[in-house]
């Protein structure tokens, strides 16, 4: 038979069904014979019941939608098969079904070879992430959080949302008008996306401070699923320009951005 102190010590675990059968039985026996412990348990049980009925904070619908879209973008970026020209855009329902299949497929594959993917080259991984982010921005018709051709509207919008101030300049007179700005996330943190257009083509210019570990030759180019990515470092800031423009056009865009920013 347990004494009161021992019983009280295990009451919480008893309440949570975390005790083995032997200890559970001993606690039960003590509770049956001890009014004080029984009262203590009643209070604990009432508290536990009350805690369990406190409703969860409801998930905002906008967040659910945003994450749903973002994951669809991720899954599609993995698939490498979905054309993104507006005319050829697949129906939403079909995309959802495909994404579900992909996630299931990844799960089955993962069951066989479960390991964290650690790409050898961080630059490749970053390029992959910004291209995925670019595709996502086209897919979910969520190109810009702040849609404006006015750099004096877009630039202040980033204030307080990031711990750095991305340069925002309208290059309309160079043939690259500003479309807006967006906050995005890479694996290692938030990033500013400044959105431009060249005729019908969208360019996402991703900007964040360069980290000390970013080494090698710049500019770097990458290409994935018909999208080109050009990355460079200037004045302690790392840039990625992503678009379906040709590498030459992207190069031209980079030169324009570079000239506008003091080195």
């Amino acid at each position: 038979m347990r004494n009161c102190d021992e019983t009280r010590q295990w009451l919480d675990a008893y309440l949570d069904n975390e005790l083995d059968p032997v200890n559970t039985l001993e606690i039960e026996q003590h509770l049956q014979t001890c009014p004080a412990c029984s009262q203590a348990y009643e209070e604990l049980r009432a508290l536990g019941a009350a805690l369990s009925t406190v409703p969860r904070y409801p998930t905002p619908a906008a967040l659910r939608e945003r994450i749903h879209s973002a994951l669809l973008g991720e899954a599609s970026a993995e698939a490498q098969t979905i054309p993104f020209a507006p005319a050829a855009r697949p129906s939403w329902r079909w995309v959802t079904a495909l994404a579900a299949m992909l996630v299931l497929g990844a799960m089955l594959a993962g069951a066989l070879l479960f390991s964290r993917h650690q790409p050898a080259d961080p630059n490749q991984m970053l390029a992959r992430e910004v291209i995925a982010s670019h595709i996502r921005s086209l897919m979910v018709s969520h190109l810009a959080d702040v849609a404006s051709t006015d750099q004096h509207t877009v630039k202040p919008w980033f204030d307080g949302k990031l711990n750095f101030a991305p340069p925002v300049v309208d290059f309309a007179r160079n043939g690259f008008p500003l479309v807006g700005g967006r906050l995005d996330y890479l694996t290692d943190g938030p990033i500013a996306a400044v959105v431009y257009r060249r005729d019908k083509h969208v360019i996402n210019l991703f900007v964040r401070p360069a980290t000390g570990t970013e080494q090698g030759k710049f500019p770097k180019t990458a290409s994935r699923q018909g999208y080109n990515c050009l990355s460079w470092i200037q004045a302690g800031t790392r840039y990625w320009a992503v678009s379906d423009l040709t590498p030459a056009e992207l190069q031209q865009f980079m030169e324009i951005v570079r000239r506008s920013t003091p080195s």
Partner: protein
Amino acid sequence: MILPHLDAAYNLARWLTGHDQDAQDVVQEASLRAFRAFDGFYGENGRAWLLTIVRNTAYNLLQKNKSLRQTTPFDEELHGNAGASECATPLSLLRGAEDEQNLRAAVEALPDEFREALVLRHQDGLSYREIALIAGVPTGTVMSRLARARARLKDFLAKGNREEEAS
């Protein structure tokens, strides 16, 4: 494998950060991080994995902007609401919407590691083992955190009433 656990993820982030917008940022970042890190697969317990990432992301954020809430003295926050009930036994203390507010406020005033254990246990129904995995501590620590958290809640709710009577 993220969407089915989104409610649990947001709820935990909301409790830990204390702010809707912070919680949304945390969940969005954590979801993408989880998806990319595991290519959509998190092993046998997807929920625990996602909640682990949510938790770590939330603590990173809290570390960055040491929130105002943490500087609020333990007793002060609750004092305004705590006396609302007439009787100090938990059963009557916790009944009804007003008491739910009390309880919610009391949980909010607890230290982070107590709060997260309570939320994971009572709102998500997780086992000690799962909570231990998420919080990165031994299961014995989970047990003692839950016991201490509940003891503090009981004291807290009872104390609010005594003070009301005294004043």
